[in-house]
């Protein structure tokens, strides 16, 4: 099984620890991971801003880097979704079709391809799960409250097996955090309000650490938490699943 690792641009530059946790975790699970060094970005930032045509170069670069892998794994539901849903504007060669089909968000890959659940992690904290929208309603990594279906959640299935972790319930389990790419700056007022409300929900539930499948949401929430000196930490799910902390102190 040839697995290529895609590290989203902002994780590469701003949150390398998430990429490191991802690669270490996959290696722990005996996956031989290749990190193609010529990768950049899935192209989403331009496309969601209405400049899809400016992202064609990024799309082609992505396909060139990942066309030879059986699976492409990424610690981002949003990027995986973008490749799957929006790479329809470039010619649908065999390679493009294969890349779109084989791209997986990390939890999805571990649970449904590797068929692993208990990863031997320990993380003794109260955790609030932020269900990032593109993963949830795009990739269907879990059931969402709008749809009448059986309840499931890949990220929670994995977290449930983490020693010491307590998943805290939220009042609004799957409302958007307000990041939304350039939305965060073009609609600054609403974006910030959404983030504040989200954090409030977590704080009121006694959450110590917010986690998600997407660092982009977490960057937005962390920005607010840090500005307002709130007693919360944010960690990507890969960082928790790669932890082995036996006690709080």
């Amino acid at each position, binding site marked *: 099984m040839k697995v290529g690792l895609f590290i989203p641009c902002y994780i590469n530059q701003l949150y390398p*620890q998430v990429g490191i946790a991802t690669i270490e975790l996959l290696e722990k699970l005996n996956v031989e991971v290749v990190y193609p060094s010529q990768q950049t970005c899935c192209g989403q930032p331009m496309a969601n801003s209405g400049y899809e045509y*400016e992202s064609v170069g990024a799309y082609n670069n992505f396909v060139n880097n990942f066309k030879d892998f059986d699976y492409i794994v990424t610690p981002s539901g949003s990027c995986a979704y973008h490749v799957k849903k929006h790479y329809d504007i470039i010619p649908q060669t065999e390679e493009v079709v294969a890349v779109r089909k084989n791209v997986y968000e990390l939890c999805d890959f571990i649970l449904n391809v590797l068929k692993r659940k208990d990863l031997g992690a320990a993380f003794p904290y109260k955790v609030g799960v932020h269900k990032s929208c593109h993963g949830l309603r795009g990739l269907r990594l879990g059931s969402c409250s709008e749809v009448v279906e059986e309840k499931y959640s890949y990220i929670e299935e994995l977290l449930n097996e983490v020693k010491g972790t307590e998943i805290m319930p939220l009042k609004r389990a799957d409302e958007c955090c307000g990041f939304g790419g350039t939305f965060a700056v073009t609609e600054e007022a609403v974006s910030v309000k959404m983030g504040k409300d989200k954090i409030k929900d977590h704080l009121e539930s006694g959450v110590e650490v917010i986690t998600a499948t997407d660092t982009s949401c977490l960057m937005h929430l962390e920005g607010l938490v*840090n500005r307002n000196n709130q007693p919360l930490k944010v960690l990507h799910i890969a960082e928790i699943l790669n932890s082995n902390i036996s006690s709080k102190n």
Partner: protein
Amino acid sequence: MSHPNLASIFNKDEKRVDWHDKALWFVRHKRDRSVHNVKGWESLRELGHGIKAHTLSNIDNYLIQFEVNALNNGVQVHWAANAEEHNQIVHKILKKNNAKKVVKSKSMLTEECHLNPYLEADGIEVIDTDLGERIVQLAKEPPSHVVLPAIHKDRHQVDELFQEHLGTEPCDGDPQYLTAEARKHLREKFIQADVAITGVNFAVAETGGFVVCTNEGNADMGAHLAPVHIACMGVEKIIPKQEHLGVFLRLLARSATGQPITTYSSHFKKPRKGAKMHIVIVDNGRSEQLSRPDFRASLHCIRCGACMNTCPIYRRSGGHSYDYTIPGPIGSILSPGKDLKKYSTLPFASTLCGSCSDVCPVKIDIHSQLYKWRQIITKNTPQPFIKKKSMKVMGQIFAKPSQFEKIGKVARWSLRNLPKSFINSKPNAWGKARDLPKGPKQSFDDWHKQREDNKLKNK
């Protein structure tokens, strides 16, 4: 004004935003409780979608069939290509019947056509009879929601409005008292009305009849008392058969308010003895929207308002921030088809979270259409130079790995070394309320390269 501007004004009063958000989230919550109790709900949505898609693919024939049947039922049928014609037709019917007093039940179409000011200019009194509509009419505001027109007003504001316009006693916003007073006030209007105007929720080709849904009973009070009933409908309200009502009436109220059905679902077919009935069928941009394959499904909309209630942006920016007859996510995919430039910020008033598409009872892919409108807007309307340029540069950086690495290094250095006051200064909207991440010394690329190098060395 653009959506971001109006939204930031709305957000100046955070308590009010919280109140508005909670009121609508409560409605969304009621919707959830209701639909999760319906066996086969998702199949029902699938049917709603399928029936609408089929109908649009044969819409001209269904409208012809509807017209034939309506005429046979003794109903007069009129066709209006646009808002102006719609208003003229209605006006003409009023003139012919010497009508001076009109009662109207809720109709987003007549809002869209700005019928009230048109008729009022000729001295005709038009009274909106839905309580929420009456409230916004007294306040001289447009509705801020398709089902809950006055959701942006609190009880105290209604209290004050009624004191001023209806002469009610101060009541500390008691909804029971205010509703009872409205009932009295509007009862008089119903009794005096020369003509009743209603909207249409569904028009049935097979029977030539149409269905109007209300909770208050105002459509029926108007239509059964006045000697003339005018029903105004967009072309997309047509459905093929009566049995299809079984699908849509199951979907509509549950999605709208969580009720199992509206209190009244009235099926009009023939005028009552001695009375007249007219139907005005309106295009006003709908056939043009039908021509756009990516956007025609927006015409499936049954105006339940569920996408508004679920939208985290709508709840925190208010219906008026959209500055369009139909606000919220559905309005944001309908409005660009009407005026691309004027409504160019609406498809961007979304995080593309997709909740709207998942609550939609007729499965309109609202968030995908928002994304598609964005692509069209950037190409066809003037965009800020800086946005256009930065997207181009970003596109080039991401297309060439070598450049990406260089730029990344500079960005991380800046985040680490420039003072916070500079990074979060005014031009950076991110930094107004949020900190930026601390730029790490090493990117993941750097770390990985180092690791690979060490591996080689250790071999």
